[in-house]
């Protein structure tokens, strides 16, 4: 457990750092995929197998591929960026903000009050047959959010198509 945790965490953090710091967009994407795999591994480690599979299916199978397609539609093929192009204006402000938030989060987690609240160990319960339970929960207690989600996804699908198609139509 510990070894797996540390290895996966290393993969996750490394993937995340590389994803936002590499120069080539495609390399960033590949690092992001690594990061996604790391997160999926964490899910498996936490006995949330279903979520792990969903993570791979959706993030790696769909989102990453989508980003790849978008990149190829918008950039020249290599995806290289010149040295000056990488960071946006006021990048220092952004990094500073991120650092502040990281520090604050760290402080809050380390804060005694919170630390005492949190359980330290996983309770000993079996995690089997979760998929069925999740399914039942989704269609029983959470059916309204589920329907809302369906509407949202449909709207997003249509919206994405419309946004991406807009100028093509105008040209005709």
């Amino acid at each position, binding site marked *: 457990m510990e070894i797996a945790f540390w290895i996966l965490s290393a993969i996750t953090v490394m993937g995340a750092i590389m994803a936002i710091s590499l120069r*080539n967009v*495609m*390399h960033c994407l*590949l690092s992001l*995929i690594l990061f996604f795999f790391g997160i999926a591994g964490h899910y498996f480690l936490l006995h949330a*197998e*279903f979520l792990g*599979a*969903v993570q*791979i*299916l959706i993030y*790696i*199978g*769909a989102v*990453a*591929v989508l980003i*790849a*397609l978008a990149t*190829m539609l918008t950039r020249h*093929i*290599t*995806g290289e960026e010149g040295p000056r192009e990488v960071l946006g204006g006021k990048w220092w402000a952004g990094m500073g903000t991120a650092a502040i938030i990281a520090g604050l989060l760290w402080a809050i987690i380390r804060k005694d009050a919170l630390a005492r609240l949190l359980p330290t160990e996983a309770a000993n319960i079996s995690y*089997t*047959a*979760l*998929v*069925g339970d999740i399914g039942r929960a989704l269609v029983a207690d959470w059916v309204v959010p589920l329907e809302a989600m369906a509407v949202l996804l449909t709207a997003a699908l249509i919206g994405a198509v419309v946004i991406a198609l807009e100028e093509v139509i105008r040209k005709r």
Partner: protein
Amino acid sequence: MDTVYQFLQHAEEVLRGIPLVGGLLARLYHALLGGAPEWVLLAISIAVPILFVVSVFPGIFAYTTLVERKALGRIQNRIGPNRVGRWGLLQPIADGVKLLTKEDIVPRSADKFVHFLAPVAAVIPSVLLFSVVPIGAGLVPVDLNIGLLFAFAISTASVLALFMGGWASRNKFSLLGAMRAVAQVISYEVPMVLAAVAVVMAVGSLSTLAIARAQSGGILNVSHWFVFRPWGFVGFVLFTIGAMAESARTPFDIPEAESEIIAGYHTEYSGFKFALFQLGEYLASIAMAGITVTMFLGGYNGPGSGPGFFGGLISVFWFFSKLGCMIVLTIWIRGTWPRVRVDQLMSFAWKILLPMSIVNIVAVAMWHYITIRPIAWIGTTLWLVLWFVTLNKLAATEKIEKREYRYAS
């Protein structure tokens, strides 16, 4: 894994039950592993499935290529490879040696690292796919309770390899091939998963072993196969088409259509990397065939299969026979079908397969709720046929007129 472990724990009794050589085998086993500590047994039980997957399926791959070449040859009125060994049996080995010793060419402007990573990334998911394919009664490398979902997740990951290879080669044909592959895989994944959802609904579990088990029993262990249900048949067809497109087999080999984009994403690959690409592609296709067999063709179930040692052996036999049939089917289709056009490919996925798979899900629900079997049969069949005809009518964009052959008689 669990089955192997259990077998190891009771190996001696089981082996002694075999006629003729049983006693000998039991004594041999006792000499080798008698009284071995627990962790050894555990390690062996983990290693056996891995070794099996890593050794047997690449072997199947190798001889699949041979069978494919022979069969294609016969379909095209040729003989096929027959020089290396009797009936060309050693041809795969010769091919392997050739590919291993070929020069590995990397284009100068290519992204070296990704170019190297792509073939590896192509093989890994394909091998991982086998971890949830049950090859016999109770014989599955890992019995995940989300087995099917895992398989789909892994199979989508395989598209990344194609994409990486296509992009890293810095070749427009490679890139076109990659983009085609991405678009195709994303499109066909949806109906494929939905076709599988029908089976999952019928079984009530995502575990591949449970799905296979649900199809046992009946007349000769055959009549409960899902392919002999109206929705199962439709699901089988949908899933087979989807799987074929997902692994880019003809007639869906748009990403590597020779006459259009040379060789697609592996245009710039040669030697061992090319072999790895081929390996990955074929392994994925075989694994998909295995999952198809598990989901629709009864998995390991067949006359005589069942629990126990002999039943298990027979079930393994049935599984591989069915797998062989599926492989031959894909080869047959490859040899006889023309390639579809890109736009046809997309409209086929979105206008026929996707609605049809959703209709199929409704059919399963009908099957579930109509308890009187004959009515369920008639009802589901009517429902599916009706929609099939309607969808075809709706999707037909142009009327195909009767052709007039000006030069042919």
